[in-house]
């Protein structure tokens, strides 16, 4: 990156800066004439009754002359203002482009950081620097030349005018400028120094917040919130004291500036007054100079501010650039380039000569490793933890660059090969895999996205937008790769037609033993709207599910099906009334009664009073049961219909009226009661509050609700319909089409088994997995368990079939029973390719053709498993 901000500005925006300057100078004449015209109007049009009134060579009548001049004045103001508008917008665009370029470059540098550097920088600081701190730099770019030109020009004009009036007064006006130029920046520098400390402190705050988010579980588990609060308080305190010092200095500067500016008039009146008394200058001249001096202060202040900002920005830029250029920064061309010759990974060799890698303290982690691996190879790396196994796999993956020595593949230096190539040919699966925020499918395909493969040709308005975006990205030196293109290298995954990608993905999931997890996700996932043919098959599955349940009395007890003609005693009252899934947030199952349409249905069916009475009885029971429990008791959350803070309110309502006289209550109080019963589940709560008769009436309300639903609300509910799939419900809900019954032993497990049988019988398993692939993984894969993340990381690499795969303890998070299965499946999946696997379990090494033992960063033994496990070998620490 450019060493200074001016070099940066010159290199990337000198043309634009010239245009800004030109526009600036262009705005001077209209400004000058708009100042000049009032004088002419007063002196000539108003003050001179005799004329002649000449305008542009025409001899005009006096009023016409006046209006002509006024019109001219208006025109000049418009031109001046218009120019200023164009100038401001343009300067803004230039600033924003430079800001975009700067941020892009900084981000690109982050991508080029050597891996060990990430141990030294904090994520919070990087975010702060790229996002917040560059903002000031961008703003400055637009002003870099325009401000000194404009303000300096104005200042010079006014000074010239003053010297024309009287040189001594001119000198008096600027007498204190040297002092200001000397003093103010010195003070300002101290303020800037403090400001910089403040920035660093704020960065530390950012770091603290991101660390808190990352370790939130530890904080709660250790109960250290108080300690964390104290730490944060201390940091905020530091910011406070810095700000306090800044304020004292900053306002001192302001005071001095104002004082020095006011000294001007002091000199004018004393020296100028003396000169007037002695008749050396006229009073008019003195008044003019005093007036001019007033105009002088604004540009002078602007110039001083500019000078201060300049100083600040220069330092800030240099600091930022230094932060983003650590030693060992990867060359930019390796990040996205392609090699002149592609190395071959079969029939060649991977050779390490004197590979040494140092840790932060300068101690060797790998110490002159010499190795030759003839590809394809199947190698196990064993040895004690910390003996260099992990580092060696990272070096072989091209992720760590050795401090000395070389890694050669097919005669080419591995670390001089561009990353896209390495990304296609080599895979690394570590013990702490990270996922991107997106669906499981996004993560599976992530390793295949080195460059855009199939462009999507935009149409209509998109075409114009694409062209515009592209032009703008180019103007800021950003990437112009279209994000909406298909980036996936399907060919590498062995997929001919992207529409036929499922088998390859299923196979990859199977190797990592992730299929069952994704199947479970799929059951809970919504039925995809873009797969209409699936609906029919799901309906068939639903019918055979229904037949199976009906055919066996024992099974029938497990599920209570949705039946439009029957009240479902395992569903809430709200679910029974709506008899569908709410879409969007128009109908809220928690507060159904408050919706005006629901309310109108309840009124039409005379249910309001009845349900208020149910609510009354429910409140009675709740008050009775929970009255003596402390407010923070977990039973409230688990069992109560009334939150602890609302309990006194309901107690008061119960005290106000008996159940026969609910009309004594206010409408609001009755509404509170009405809200309560909607969460009642007959089979679960056993309160006997919703009897047969009430159930029948609720069924009436259910029918009316659906029949009368206004067109505007049609999209807000997906009704349960035995003959149609429910787009708002999950796959499982659609097949089951009912509620799992309360109070049946092992109901959930037995239903899951039944469901799996039905799904398999209808050949729907793959389709369910396909739905599961659309599950969102959350930020960093947080919604997945560690084992699932690990399996997904394995499946990701299996799918893209690299030539060489490096693994470091990739299965440790998996169930013990799954680990050997995944190992064998992986070895099978990469049968003709190369595997280097860093292992903890020595037994596993027997599955590999060659075993290499690393201790203290050195290869201490290598050979076949039989040779290695012979008696000459010292026992290796930490097996298992």
């Amino acid at each position, binding site marked *: 990156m450019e060493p200074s901000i001016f070099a940066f500005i010159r290199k990337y925006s000198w043309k634009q800066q010239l245009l800004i300057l030109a526009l600036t100078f262009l705005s001077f004449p209209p400004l000058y004439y708009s100042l000049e015209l009032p004088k002419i109007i007063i002196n000539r049009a108003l003050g001179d009754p005799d004329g002649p009134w000449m305008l542009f060579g025409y001899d005009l009548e006096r009023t016409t002359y006046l209006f002509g001049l006024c019109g001219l004045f208006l025109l000049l103001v418009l031109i001046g203002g218009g120019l200023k508008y164009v100038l401001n917008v343009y300067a803004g665009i230039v600033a924003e482009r430079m800001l975009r370029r700067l941020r892009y470059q900084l981000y690109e540098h982050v991508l080029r950081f050597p891996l060990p550097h990430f141990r030294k920088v904090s994520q919070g600081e990087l975010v702060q620097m790229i996002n917040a701190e560059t903002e000031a730099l961008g703003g400055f770019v637009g002003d870099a030349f325009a401000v000194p030109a404009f303000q300096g020009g104005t200042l010079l004009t006014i000074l010239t005018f003053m010297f024309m009036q009287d040189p001594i007064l001119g000198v008096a006006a600027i007498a204190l400028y040297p002092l200001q130029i000397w003093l103010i920046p010195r003070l300002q520098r101290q303020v800037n120094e403090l400001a910089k400390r403040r920035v660093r402190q704020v960065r530390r705050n950012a770091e603290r917040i991101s660390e808190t988010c990352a370790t939130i579980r530890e904080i709660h588990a250790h109960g250290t919130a108080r300690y964390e609060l104290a730490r944060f308080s201390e940091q905020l305190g530091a910011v406070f004291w810095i700000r306090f010092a800044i304020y004292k200095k900053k306002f001192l500067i302001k005071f001095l500036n104002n004082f020095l500016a006011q000294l001007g008039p002091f000199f004018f009146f004393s020296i100028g007054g003396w000169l007037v008394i002695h008749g050396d200058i006229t009073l008019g001249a003195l008044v003019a100079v005093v007036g001019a001096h007033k105009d002088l202060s604004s540009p002078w202040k602007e110039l001083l501010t500019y000078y201060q900002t300049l100083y600040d920005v220069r330092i800030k830029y240099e600091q930022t650039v230094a932060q983003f250029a650590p030693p060992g920064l990867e060359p930019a061309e390796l990040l996205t380039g392609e090699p002149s010759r592609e190395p071959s990974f079969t029939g060649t060799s991977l050779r390490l000569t004197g590979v040494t890698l140092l840790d932060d303290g300068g101690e060797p982690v790998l110490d002159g490793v010499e190795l030759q691996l003839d590809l394809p190879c199947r190698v196990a790396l064993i040895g004690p933890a910390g003996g260099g196994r992990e580092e060696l796999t990272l070096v072989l993956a091209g992720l760590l660059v050795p401090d000395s020595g070389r890694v050669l593949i097919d005669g080419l230096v591995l670390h001089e090969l561009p990353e896209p190539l390495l990304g296609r040919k080599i895979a690394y699966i570590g013990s702490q895999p990270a996922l991107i925020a997106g669906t499981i499918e996004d993560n599976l395909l992530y390793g295949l996205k080195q460059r855009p493969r199939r462009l999507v040709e935009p149409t209509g308005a998109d075409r114009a937008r694409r062209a515009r975006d592209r032009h703008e990205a180019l103007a800021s030196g950003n990437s112009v790769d279209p994000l909406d293109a298909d980036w996936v290298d399907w060919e590498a995954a062995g997929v001919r037609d992207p529409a036929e990608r499922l088998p390859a993905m299923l196979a990859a999931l199977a190797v990592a033993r992730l299929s069952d997890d994704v199947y479970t996700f799929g059951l809970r996932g919504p039925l995809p709207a873009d797969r209409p043919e699936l609906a029919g098959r799901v309906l068939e599955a639903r019918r055979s599910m229904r037949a199976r349940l009906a055919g066996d009395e024992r099974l029938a007890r497990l599920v209570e099906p949705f039946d439009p003609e029957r009240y479902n005693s395992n569903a809430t009252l709200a679910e029974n009334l709506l008899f569908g899934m709410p879409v969007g947030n128009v109908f809220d199952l928690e507060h159904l009664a408050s919706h005006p349409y629901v309310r109108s249905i309840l009124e039409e069916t005379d249910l309001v009073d009845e349900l208020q009475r149910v609510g009354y009885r429910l409140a009675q029971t709740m008050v009775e049961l929970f009255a003596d*429990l*402390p407010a923070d008791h977990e039973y409230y959350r688990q069992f109560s219909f009334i939150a602890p803070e609302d309990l006194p309110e309901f107690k008061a309502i119960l005290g106000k009226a008996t159940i026969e006289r609910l009309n004594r209550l206010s409408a609001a109080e009755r509404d509170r009661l009405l809200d309560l019963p909607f969460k009642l589940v007959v089979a679960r709560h056993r*309160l006997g509050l919703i009897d047969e008769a009430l159930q029948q009436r609720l069924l009436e309300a259910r029918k009316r609700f659906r029949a009368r639903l206004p067109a505007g609300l049609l999209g807000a509910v997906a009704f349960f319909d035995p003959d149609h799939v429910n787009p708002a419900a999950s796959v499982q809900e659609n097949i089951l089409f009912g509620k799992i019954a309360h109070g049946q*032993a092992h109901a959930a497990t037995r239903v899951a088994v039944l469901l799996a049988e039905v799904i398999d019988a209808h050949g729907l398993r793959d389709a369910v997995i396909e739905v599961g692939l659309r599950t969102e993984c959350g930020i960093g894969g947080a919604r997945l368990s560690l084992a699932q993340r690990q399996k997904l990381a394995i499946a990701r690499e299996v799918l893209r079939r690299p030539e060489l795969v490096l693994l470091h303890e990739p299965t440790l998070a998996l169930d013990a029973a799954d680990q050997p299965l995944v190992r064998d499946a992986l070895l099978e999946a990469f049968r003709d390719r190369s595997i280097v696997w860093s292992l903890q379990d020595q037994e596993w090494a027997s599955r590999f053709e060659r075993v290499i033992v690393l201790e203290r960063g050195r290869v201490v033994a290598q050979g076949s498993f039989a040779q290695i496990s012979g008696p000459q070998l010292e026992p290796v620490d930490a097996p298992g």
Partner: protein
Amino acid sequence: MSLQRDVDALRAIPLFAKVEPSRLKLLAFTSEHLDFEPGEILCRQGEPGDAAFILLEGTADVFVDTPRGRVKVATLGKNDIVGEIAILCDVPRTATVVAATRLHTLKIGKDGFFNLVTQFPEVGVEIMHELAARLHHTTQRLTNVSLRLAELEASKA
């Protein structure tokens, strides 16, 4: 009201007999009904237990695994409680209980039970009384058995 029926069932159990009805109501409300098909297992000997069952309808057989095989030691019926030892102290199930007919139970979870005891110490005191009475009863029987044993040994000698 079936909740009231559960409260009555709880009250019929000596362990809860003297506990205030409103507390029992809370216990009943926070417990769940669980139905078993004939042959389904309520609890298995040797496994950790976290709940007691009160039989509301149907019968269940209690089996104990001995070195000589599985032996049926009892049949339980309406208003019997099974597995209460597990919610009082952390011991593995001492027997296997199998539903003999279709069985309707009230499942008292360990958490629900302890919530009741810790929240309302008087419940704990009542249960302590009941347990002490049981212990007294057991001690008496043990004394009788010991005396009888001594007599037998004396007569042998």
